[in-house]
C-alpha cells in the first residue's frame, strides 16, 4: 500500500467556495428515531421498489417494505419499528412523486409481535462465494450513496466478457459544504477497509485506488493507518482540489489515466468500477454484520442552520426533523438544498425525507442565495474552459434557447454530466446547465419514442 499524487489532471473544472469548515470538525452523531418516517420506494436509480406493506400493518426494524422491482432496482427496508399510517405518493428531493411508506414510530407494538431488529445472518466474506456476497449486497438494499443511487449489486456484476481491473473508491467529496464522506473515512476507515476487501473478492483481485482530494489530509492519514497492512495493489491517490473531481469519469482519469468513451459507454468498458466510500462501508456492514441499509450519514449545514452537524439518521427522516436535531434554523432560510450547492436539488419544503442518496441538507440564508436575471451570451468562453467534458457549453445553450435540439445533440450535449461548472462561471448568469438538461430530456424522450415505435412496428399485426 502506498500513497501517491494524481498525475492526470482533467481539463476544465472550477473552484467554488467549499464552506466545508462549517461541518468538517463535527463527529458523526447518531440521531434518535423521529416520531414519523417517510420511507420512499424510489431511493435509487431505476424502477421504484414494489411496496409489500399496507396501511395498518405494524413493521419491525429491518423488515422488507418494498421489494426489488426489475433488474435496475433495489429493495427498501423499515428503518425503525412502527405502524404504517399510509402508503401514498410523496414528493421526493428531485421533484417527482413516488410511493412512500409513512411510519408512526411511536405506535406501540401489537401483542405477540417480535420487536427485535430483523438482521441477516453475518457472512464470513473470506469463505463466502462471489454469488453469496452479491446476493447479500442485493438483499441489503445497497445503492450508490454518492448521489446517483445506482444499484450496487448490478455495478459489481460486470456483463460477460468485461473484467474489472481497477476498483476506484470515491472519497473525493468535491461538493461544497458536504463532509459526510470525509467524516466517514476519518471515523470508519476500518469499515472502508473491510468493504474494499469484500469488493475486491467479488470483482476478482483487481487493483484498488482510493481517491481522496488533497483538502482532506486527516482522512488520508486515517486510510493510510487502516490500509497499512493490506496486501495486493492498493494505492491512496491524492487528487488536486478541483470540482468535479468526484465525477466518475474524471475520477477514473485522475486515478488510472483512462478515459471513459462517450455514452452509452460505462466505466467497466475501460476496466473500472467506481464506488463511493459510504457504499463501501455499507457493504462491510451488510456482509459482516448482516445489516440492511437503514441509515446514512448526512451533512446538515449552511449559514441558516444553528449547529451544522454530520448526522447518521434513519432513512426517511424528514428534513424538518434533521434541522431540529441540528439546533433549528438560525434564521429563515431562503433556499433549502438536498445535496451540495453544485448539483443538489432545491426543495420546496422541509417535509421531504432523506433517502439512501441524501449526502447533505443545506439551509442557505438570503445572503448566500441570489436571484439573477440572465443576460445575452457575450461569448466569453468561460463555460467552454470550465467544462470538464470539454463541451462547447455556450453553443449548446444558444442552440437550446433557439429550440434547436439537433444542434445541441451534434455538439455532444448527451456527454454533459450536469456538474454545473458552466453556469457557475457564466458572467451573464445564463442557466447553461439547465439548457443542457432540457436538451438531454428532449433527446431521451425522442429516443424512447423511436424505440416504442420500432417495437410496435416489429410486433406482428
Amino acid at each position, binding site marked *: 500500500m502506498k500513497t501517491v499524487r494524481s498525475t492526470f489532471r482533467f481539463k476544465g473544472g472550477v473552484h*467554488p467556495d467549499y464552506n466545508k469548515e462549517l461541518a468538517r470538525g463535527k463527529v458523526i452523531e447518531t440521531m434518535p428515531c423521529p416520531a414519523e418516517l417517510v420511507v420512499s420506494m424510489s431511493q435509487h436509480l431505476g424502477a421504484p421498489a414494489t411496496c409489500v406493506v399496507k396501511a395498518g400493518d405494524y413493521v419491525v426494524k429491518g423488515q422488507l417494505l418494498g421489494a426489488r422491482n426489475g433488474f435496475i432496482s433495489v429493495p427498501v427496508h423499515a428503518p425503525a419499528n412502527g405502524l404504517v399510517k399510509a402508503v401514498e405518493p410523496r414528493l421526493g428531493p428531485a421533484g417527482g412523486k413516488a410511493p412512500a411508506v409513512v411510519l408512526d414510530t411511536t405506535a406501540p407494538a401489537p401483542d405477540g409481535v417480535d420487536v427485535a431488529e430483523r438482521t441477516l445472518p453475518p457472512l464470513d466474506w473470506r469463505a463466502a462465494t462471489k454469488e453469496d456476497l452479491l446476493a447479500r449486497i442485493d438483499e441489503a438494499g445497497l445503492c450508490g450513496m454518492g448521489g446517483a443511487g445506482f444499484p450496487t449489486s448490478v455495478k459489481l456484476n460486470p456483463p460477460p466478457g468485461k473484467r474489472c481491473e481497477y476498483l476506484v473508491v470515491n472519497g473525493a467529496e468535491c461538493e461544497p459544504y458536504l463532509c459526510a464522506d470525509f467524516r466517514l473515512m476519518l471515523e470508519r476507515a476500518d469499515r472502508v477497509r473491510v468493504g474494499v476487501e469484500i469488493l475486491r473478492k467479488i470483482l476478482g483481485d483487481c487493483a484498488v485506488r482510493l481517491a481522496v482530494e488533497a483538502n482532506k489530509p486527516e482522512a488520508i492519514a486515517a486510510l493510510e493507518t487502516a490500509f497499512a497492512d493490506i496486501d495486493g495493489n492498493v494505492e491512496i491517490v491524492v487528487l488536486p482540489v478541483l470540482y468535479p473531481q468526484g465525477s466518475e469519469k474524471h475520477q477514473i482519469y485522475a486515478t488510472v489515466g483512462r478515459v471513459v468513451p462517450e455514452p452509452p459507454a460505462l466505466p467497466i468498458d475501460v476496466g473500472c468500477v467506481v464506488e463511493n466510500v459510504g457504499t463501501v462501508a455499507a457493504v462491510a456492514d451488510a456482509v459482516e454484520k448482516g445489516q440492511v441499509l437503514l441509515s446514512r450519514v448526512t451533512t446538515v449545514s449552511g449559514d441558516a442552520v444553528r449547529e451544522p452537524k454530520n448526522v447518521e439518521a434513519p432513512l426517511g427522516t424528514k428534513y424538518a426533523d434533521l434541522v431540529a436535531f441540528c439546533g433549528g434554523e438560525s434564521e429563515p432560510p431562503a*433556499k433549502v438544498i438536498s445535496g451540495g450547492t453544485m448539483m443538489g436539488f432545491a426543495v420546496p419544503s422541509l417535509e421531504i425525507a432523506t433517502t439512501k442518496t441524501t449526502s447533505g441538507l443545506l439551509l442557505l440564508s438570503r445572503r448566500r442565495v441570489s436571484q439573477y436575471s440572465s443576460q445575452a451570451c457575450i461569448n466569453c468562453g468561460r463555460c467552454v474552459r470550465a467544462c470538464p467534458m470539454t463541451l462547447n457549453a455556450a453553443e449548446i445553450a444558444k442552440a437550446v434557447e433557439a429550440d434547436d435540439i439537433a444542434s445541441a445533440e451534434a455538439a455532444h450535449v448527451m456527454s454533459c454530466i450536469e456538474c454545473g461548472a458552466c453556469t457557475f462561471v457564466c458572467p*451573464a448568469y445564463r442557466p447553461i446547465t439547465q439548457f443542457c438538461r432540457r436538451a438531454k430530456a428532449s433527446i431521451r424522450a425522442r429516443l424512447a419514442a423511436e424505440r416504442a415505435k420500432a417495437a410496435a412496428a416489429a410486433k406482428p399485426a
Partner: protein
Amino acid sequence: MKPKDTAEHYILSSSPHTHARSSVSRIMLDVIVALLPTTAAGIWFFGLPAVWTIATCVATCLVTEALCRLAMKRENTLGDLSAVVTGLLLALNLPAGLPLWMAVVGSVFAIGVAKQVFGGLGMNPFNPALAARAFMLISFTGPMTTWLKPLWWKTPEAMTTATPLAAMKRLYGCDVVTQATPHVEKALSGLPSLWDLLVGNMPGCIGEVSTLALALGAAYLLVRKVITWHIPVAFLVTVWLYAYFAGGAPAHLQVLTGGVMIGACFMATDYVTSPTTAKGKLVFGFGCGLLCMLIRQFGAYPEGCSFAILIMNALAPLINRWTQPKPFGGK
C-alpha cells in the same frame, strides 16, 4: 405534524446554487481599468483635444445606447458598461483634434448601427468601435488621417504630422501616395527612437501610441483572467514574423507602431466577435496579424489593423465551427 401551509417559500431553481460572482459589468469595468494607462498616455501626449474626443465618444455612446433601447422597447443596458467600453475604444482609435461632430457621428454609428441593430451586446458580428472607425475612415478620410503632433514631438514648428507607419510606407517603397510633404521628410529624417516608440511619443491615434501603457493594461486583463494570451500572442508574433521575413522596415517597428498593440490586446480580444476555443483564438490571432501586414504592405492605407480585425470578425463563426472542442472521451 401538519405541514406548514404558507410559511415556507423557498427559492426553487435548477442547480448549481452558487456562482463565481463574475458579471458582465465587472468584466467591462476591468476592460475600462485596463484602458486607463493608455488613455492617460494619450492625454499626456495629445493634451486637451484628446480629452474632448474621449468625453464626446463615451457620452454619445451612452446616450445612443439608452435611446436605442428605449426605441426598441427593451430593458436599459447602460449598467453593463459595454457602451462605455465601446465609446472609450472608439475614442482611443481616433486622432486627437478630430472635429467633435465627426466623433459624435462615429459613436452613433458604433452603438446604433454596429451594435443595437443586431440586438445589442452579444449579438453584434463586428466589433462596434472598429466598425465605426472603418466607417469614419471612409467617410472622413482627411480628418481621420490628420495627426496632431504629440505635445513633446521633436518638430515643434509643425501642428500635424505623419505617423511613423506612413513614413515607413514611403521610406520602404510600397507607397501609393507619392506627394511627400515637408512634414513627412522631417519624420523620415529620424523615425522615433525605441524609447519614443515604447512610451508612445509619436503621432497616431489617441490610445494606440503608447506600447508600454497598452502592455500594462493587457497584463492586467491577463491577470484578471478577462482575456487569455492566445489572440494577442498569435497576432503579435504573426506581425513580427511577417515583418522579419518580408524585409523592409525593422520588424519591431511594425509591432510598436500603428494599431497593432491596441488591436491585438483590446480589439481582437473582444469576446463577442472572436472565437471561443483556444485553438480558434490562435487561428483568429494569426489571421488578424497576417491580414494586417498584407494590408500594410499592399493596401492603399498605411495602417491595416482595423480592417484585418473586421475581416476576421466576419470569419469568427466559421473558425468557431472548425475548432469545436472534442468532448472528454469523445471521438
